[in-house]
């Protein structure tokens, strides 16, 4: 059995925060295994620990207890430089408010992660153009975020998340700032990508049951623990 049969493994993960004198446990003793190519969502009420879980999976944070394995690598023991590399090569982020760099145009925003990965200029430009074209933005390459609609901005953010060909794509309420129609369109596109590129795992945090129902698996969180896992297939 290969060590990285699972693209993502969480073993007894707990994350606590110190808020002044108060110790807050955001997630408690979570154990979870996610296979490569899954398309799943995480649902739960506010304060249930969804974003904390996503941050741990995305190597933005490290657990207080337990371990998080991304393709078999335990990130809880990694230093900052190693975590940066994991985020650069293994993870793609899609944020609720797009988080594009306002001074760069669509093409440059998509190129940004590839710069960190030291991909030659021509290659990264070609790849960024390709990603934007499959997202239907071939005519908006040189527009800055402020000149794009919400849906277009989110598509640029998706293209950016795919730039370094990561194995895990994380969406933190990616449709939260969009109207329902555009939101569904975005999720459909992600699903299509998941079907085309079977090795890529998509994990989407959402409040919206409509969005969650479009995924193949739903993980319900409550009070920092997994309440249930619902498989659609």
């Amino acid at each position, binding site marked *: 059995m290969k060590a990285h049969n699972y693209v993502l493994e969480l073993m007894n993960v707990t994350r606590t925060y110190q808020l002044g004198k108060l110790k807050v446990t955001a997630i408690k003793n979570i154990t979870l295994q996610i296979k490569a190519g899954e398309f799943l969502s995480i649902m739960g009420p506010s304060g249930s620990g969804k974003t904390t879980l996503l941050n741990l999976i995305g190597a*933005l944070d490290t657990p207080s207890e337990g371990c998080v394995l991304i393709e078999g690598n335990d990130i809880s023991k990694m230093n900052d430089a190693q975590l940066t590399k994991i985020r650069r090569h293994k993870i793609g982020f899609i944020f609720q408010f797009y988080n594009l760099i306002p001074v760069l145009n669509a093409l440059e925003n998509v190129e940004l992660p590839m710069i960190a990965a030291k991909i030659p200029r021509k290659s990264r430009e070609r790849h960024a153009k390709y990603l934007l074209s499959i997202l239907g933005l071939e005519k908006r390459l040189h527009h800055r975020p402020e000149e794009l609609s919400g849906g277009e901005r989110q598509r640029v953010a998706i293209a950016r998340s795919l730039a370094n060909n990561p194995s895990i794509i994380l969406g933190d309420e990616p449709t939260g700032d969009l109207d329902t129609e555009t939101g569904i369109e975005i999720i459909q596109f992600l699903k299509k990508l998941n079907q085309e590129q079977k090795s890529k795992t998509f994990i989407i945090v959402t409040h919206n049951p409509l969005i969650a129902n479009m995924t193949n698996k739903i993980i319900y969180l409550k009070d920092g623990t997994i309440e249930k896992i619902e498989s659609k297939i």
Partner: protein
Amino acid sequence: MTARRIIIFLIGILFSISGIFLCINYFKSYISFLTGSFLFFTLGAFLLAVGLFLLIRSLHKIQFLYFGIVLTVFGILELFIGFQALFFETMNFSEFMQIGEVLIGGLFFTIGMVCLGCQILPYIITGLSYLFKPILGFLRAAMTRNILRYPRRTQNTFAMIALGLAFLIMISTFLSSISAGILPGAKLSVGGDMRVGWGSDYAPLSYTANLKGVNHVELLVPLRIVSSNCIIDEYISDYYVHFIIINTTDYAKLHKEPTLLQALNPTGLSVDDFIHKLDQENSTILFYELANALNKTVGDYINASSAEFKTTKLQIVGLCGRMPGVYYTYYEYSPPHYIAILSWSTFFKLTGYNITSYPNLVGWVVGLDSLANDGLVRSQFTVILGQYRTVYEWDIESIRKPVEQYSGIINTIYGVLSQILFIALIVSLLGLAITMNISIRQRRSEIGILRAIGISKRQILQMFFGETITISITGILFGSITGIIIGYLLIYNFPFIEWMAVIFTIPWTTLGIYWTILLVVALLSSGIPAYNANKTNIIDMIRLRGG
């Protein structure tokens, strides 16, 4: 925003009025600038500049380009008028106005340059940013656009550096040029490294050989005065006219420094070229006072005669305010003695006396080598002159005394000014540090996003350093060029006291110190907050974006 504009506008008015008052104070007492009025000008000019700049900036939708062009052209025009007024009396400006014109012109020029700089800032920054391409690669574009993203903030930072530095460098250049002119200035008053002069009697030429034998004496240039029955044209009055006879070749050797020597001649010629004009047949150089009294100028002819030569037509080849070594020895204010200078060749032609056959002299100007000890040479001269009991009332003067005197004055000015410069520098640096700090703090969420998508801490620091260095270098470039230009114009237009000579000198060491301090402060003020931001949790930084 409106309240902010009103506050800036009021600060601008406050600064401007303070500046004007301080400048007026300076203009009123400009003659005694050595005792502190210059201090008022510097502070006043700086405040006025900042005030005007703030006023301009406070107006909404102002086209800096047009303001910049108008102010710069006006500044140059003012300087030109000031220059003309200083040296060509047809302008009929009072000296008071001349200084005002020059200084206000310089001030307007500085503000104009900074305004122009603000206008073309995007192009300069884009150009400069290519320097960082090898380090930053594609992040260069992000860096450049981040700099230009907040144009007002960038312009403010740039203007703060450029304006502060321009004044610092202007004053440093001014003082360095005066300092560099101390030695030539002292030589200008003494005539050489040392002067042996007589009050009323003549000294025999035969002394020359003995004095020449003194250790470290390189050059001994005899000067001869003709004072009996000297008449020029039909000018007869209560005033005395003297002819001073000099050996042009030897005399010019004493003054090889590239001194401005404004008081000597305003033509911009070197002393060598100026003096060698006398080699032309039957020519003379007149002191200004004499030329004015005769209503003559360069190119005109005068009829000169004395007890030793008949009336002869001489052409005026130059005018001067003084002659090194001649002025103090022979010129007296009361009653006024007017001076005309002839070369030995002309004098020989008129009288038949050459430099070796003429029996009596009045004195020598002496050139010493670099190893000479002033006191030892003086004592040897004293021994030699003491052997001749036929002469008395002689005096030996060396450049040591005026050098000490001038150095003392310059040090006093520098001491006072350096305190103001230091305060100005601290204020500029604080402003720079605060601006940089705010700028980076406001962009912490962006740092978070960059970190989240895999940009390393090092790359982020490089990007911020690149931004800071680019703005700083742009400010340094403009401030330095403007400061040097204004310093140059000031040096070449300032009506110096007669004994002062100046050599335009760019104080590279001081400039280097200013540049280094500015860059270090700029790097620290962006590096520390960027470093701290880097240490902050990425999630917290992204959360700042409102997500």
